């Protein structure tokens, strides 16, 4: 197990380094966009670029970049969006709204998804199951931004329950902020609830037909006891890693939902950095998204081993 984890982490670092290096090279190959504008001193720009090390050979720049970022945590200064500010500082400032919205969404969707899935599995092939499965099929397929439009139009505009956009400012835990985040939370939740319901139903129906459950019933447990003590526990083995993986994934948020509801989070920052060609932000956020994806993958795999000791990780 320990060896397996080490191996996975080693692979993670390798993958991460390769991707970061590729990003770095590709970004450095791009033409310099700082054109001379009216009222700007070209010499000043040149001097600044010289000082920041843009004129050194690429190899030297690359090692300098690795030393600064990975060892020193210094991702450079913003060149366009927040001119002169530390990229890392701005990024950390933007994280809380993203995390909060996604955290609320998880908080809402995990219990509902699990309950619906369990209910559908217990009522398998009856009308309750059929209607839940049909609705889930629809909700799984429809992209989240369509819910966002619906929520924004119906709940925010027609019924005026929520503000159209998320509040600005940094009071993330105030009631007003919470209410203004709810539309985004709702839009994110529909898909997650549906996905979780489907998965839970599939796992639980499989467990319910297994032989050890029949044994549990024969030895005198009531149906309720058998389900609570045996079926649910076993069904949770594949479900929990998925939820844990999603919790890691909430850091990265949803680009499109953040854009629609004007959440001042990392997603919006990423889009702005692309449209504004602010390469230092782009580097940092690319690294960030890559790392989140990789870590989520590892966490899912390893948590299988912790949740169910019968699964030997890395065993052939």
């Amino acid at each position, binding site marked *: 197990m320990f060896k397996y984890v080490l191996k996975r982490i080693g*692979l993670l670092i*390798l*993958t*991460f380094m*390769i*991707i970061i290096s590729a*990003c770095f090279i*590709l*970004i450095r*190959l*791009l033409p310099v966009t700082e054109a001379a504008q009216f009222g700007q001193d070209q010499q000043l720009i040149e001097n600044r670029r010289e000082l920041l090390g843009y004129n050194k050979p690429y190899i030297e720049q690359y090692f300098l970049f690795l030393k600064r970022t990975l060892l020193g945590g210094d991702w450079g200064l913003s060149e366009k969006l927040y001119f002169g500010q530390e990229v890392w500082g701005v990024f950390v400032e933007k994280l809380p709204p993203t995390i909060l919205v996604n955290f609320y969404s998880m908080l809402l969707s995990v219990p509902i998804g699990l309950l619906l899935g369990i209910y559908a599995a217990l009522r398998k092939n009856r009308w309750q199951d059929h209607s839940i*499965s049909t609705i889930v*099929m*629809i909700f*799984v*397929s*429809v*992209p989240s*931004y*369509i819910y966002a*439009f619906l929520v*924004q*139009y119906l709940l925010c*505009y027609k019924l005026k329950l929520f503000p*159209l956009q998320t509040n600005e400012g940094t009071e993330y835990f105030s009631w007003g902020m919470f209410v203004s985040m709810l539309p985004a939370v709702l839009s994110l939740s529909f898909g997650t609830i549906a996905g979780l319901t*489907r998965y839970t139903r*599939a796992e639980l*129906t*499989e467990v319910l037909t297994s032989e050890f459950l029949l044994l549990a019933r024969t030895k005198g447990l009531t149906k309720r006891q058998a389900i609570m003590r045996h079926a649910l526990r076993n069904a949770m083995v594949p479900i929990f890693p998925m939820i844990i993986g999603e919790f890691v994934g909430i850091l990265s948020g949803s*680009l*499109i939902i953040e*854009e*629609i509801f004007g959440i001042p989070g990392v997603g919006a920052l*990423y*889009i702005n950095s*692309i*449209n504004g*060609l602010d390469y230092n932000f*782009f580097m940092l956020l*690319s690294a960030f*998204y*890559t790392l989140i*994806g*990789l870590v989520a993958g590892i966490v899912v795999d390893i948590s299988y081993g912790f949740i169910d000791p019968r699964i030997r990780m890395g065993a052939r």
Partner: protein
Amino acid sequence: MDDIKNKLTDSQFEFVSNVDISHDKKFETKPVGYFRDAFRRFCKNKSSVAAAVIILILVLYAIIVPLFMENDYTKSLTDTEYLQYTKLLPKSKLFSWAGWDGCEEKTINENVYNMYRAIGVETGYDPIKKVVDSWRENGSLYYKIKIDSYYALGMLYKSLTYDEYEKIQAWQNEHDIQVIFPAVNTSSFTIQSNKENANIWYEIKNNGAPKLDADGNIVPLYLQTGNDGGYHSKRVADDDGTFRYAKIGGTIDAMSYNVRVSKYNYFIYKYGREPYFVFGTNAKGQDIFTRLAAAAQFSFMLALFVSLINLTIGAIYGAIEGYFGGLPDLIMERVTDILSGIPFVVVTTLFQLHLANKVGPIVSLLFAFVTTGWIGMAGTVRMQFYRYKNQEYVLAARTLGAKNARIMFKHIFPNSLGTIVTSCVLVIPGVIFSESSLTYLGIVNLESSTMTSVGTMLANGREFLSTYPHIILFPALFIALLEISFNLFGNGLRDAFNPSLRGTED
């Protein structure tokens, strides 16, 4: 071996025993092949069949509509003519009874109400379908009315050349439809915006309210003096021959005829049909119905291309991995591990930054999809190869001397075709979803005069979500329908090809 085979002829063989040993009855029924069997199973799944039908309809829509209905009107982005026909509501002649009639409820003040009424009186197209309510508030009168957005188009001042002026007149004679309406004597208007408003053709008070005669009717204020370049065409009903139909400006060399045209009738003149759009028009005046079809066509083409390229690369890669196993498999798996670690949005962005200027946004988007897209397909093919490579028929083929490539693509690959086709189909909704998200976010820009994508349409409709929701409704509906039916269809295919898998994944 080959020498012996060539030397032997059929006549040299003889049966060991001539007794017919098979006592089995010959099958009366036709044998059922793999695909036939799968098709039969697929047809039993009603929701998948329905999904397949919906997909077929959507594909036909995407193919046929741009072929037959797309014209200059729907394509061009910069035509100033149809900037006059923006944000019209969906109107269908067949379903107008169901509220699909291009009408909306609006609250307006008295002056605007009178203006709409005047449009109705002059053109004969009364925009006010129903007065729902009227009330007084702070001394002014307000109306809540149901208004037809097409009839409310009203009038427009247009500057024409002599040729255009004559052409419209000739057309008017031919079709007996009034396009050019009499010019207005604006000299009594004190406010500039009233002078420029082509919809005010009646006497008004200083506050913009119409002066009414004793019977409560609007008093026309048509121009009766000056030169209108010899207007010789259809005249309005109460014209005694004194009304002037144009104001002449410009120089003697290049005279311009400033006329009042009815936007509704001008559309008929210009495009040869009455203006009604089943899906309405967008903020640039383009017909959403044909525009969406063009977008759908693009999305389908892109998805199909990506799916096929992924299939090719993934099949070859996965086949090599799965068939040889061992060290090649290990190395190739690490490569896919690394590639799959890159977030898709980062790949797309990098391709856009580097390639979009050189080869265009579509090709670079295609590259982005292909760079990481084949990994899933390779994984599927690899699993299939692991499953089949030790089966007896493979061993038999190898014993008979078949080469590796032949075993891989002649023997194993056809057997795993069902699974591969299924994952190929399931790639399509994913591609369309990603494309629409990326274009929506503006990372990829596909908007041009001849092309659009569903994501672009969504992004353009976003700012009118609260005021004109129909602009975003139809693209959103399209993509929702598409995603649902493709998922249902894909699941149906999977169940049909692998009956043993049924119910475990959905």
